[in-house]
């Protein structure tokens, strides 16, 4: 079974600074997807960024970028120019790329989350 580990329960950053959130995972599969979701106090889960394992290039979405190290099974999220609205719980998630029966392989396995505080 796949596992996802986020070793930082809490992180803080000054507004306009850069912060990196860590995520490691364990899998025996060669093809999969990795995601970062954000959950603000409103509790809505918002997709921040995704990465396909077979793509060498690190994904980027505006101020959000990842450092994907497949051999090390590491998937960190970098937030540049942090804003007050970035304050939230951030979850790293894994999904198999194989299409299992009944959609079972589409399920997401989540880490425990990192609570990010942005200080003005």
């Amino acid at each position, binding site marked *: 079974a796949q596992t996802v580990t986020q070793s930082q329960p809490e992180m803080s950053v000054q507004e306009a600074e850069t912060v990196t959130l860590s995520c490691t995972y364990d899998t025996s599969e060669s093809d999969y997807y990795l995601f970062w979701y954000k959950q603000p106090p409103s509790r*809505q889960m918002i997709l921040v960024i995704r990465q396909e394992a077979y793509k060498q290039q690190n994904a980027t979405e505006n101020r959000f970028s990842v450092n994907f190290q497949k051999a090390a099974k590491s998937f960190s999220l970098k937030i540049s120019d942090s804003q007050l609205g970035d304050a939230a719980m951030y*979850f790293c998630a894994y999904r198999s790329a194989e299409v299992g029966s009944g959609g079972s392989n*589409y399920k997401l396995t989540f880490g425990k989350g990192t609570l990010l505080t942005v200080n003005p």
Partner: protein
Amino acid sequence: SAVISQKPSRDICQRGTSLTIQCQVDSQVTMMFWYRQQPGQSLTLIATANQGSEATYESGFVIDKFPISRPNLTFSTLTVSNMSPEDSSIYLCSVAALRMEAQYFGPGTRLTVT
């Protein structure tokens, strides 16, 4: 992406009663999922709901406690039966489609059982 709504957004229920949570999406999707998020915790998958077949439950979750319906490609319900205070959680539905890499989540239902 997809626009997903859930009803109710929150509820306070008495021990021993049942609550049905609805999930509606604005486009046809292949798969719908139900997650539970206990206070201060991460998300745990309860079951995968597919149209026209029984839901597939994860270890630790059973149909008698969490019956699920999926009558069409845009709607699903999750019932939390015979509730106890341990069922107090946020329940989230999510959707995915073939060739859709990510899952998209509804706003969640905050359930408190007294």
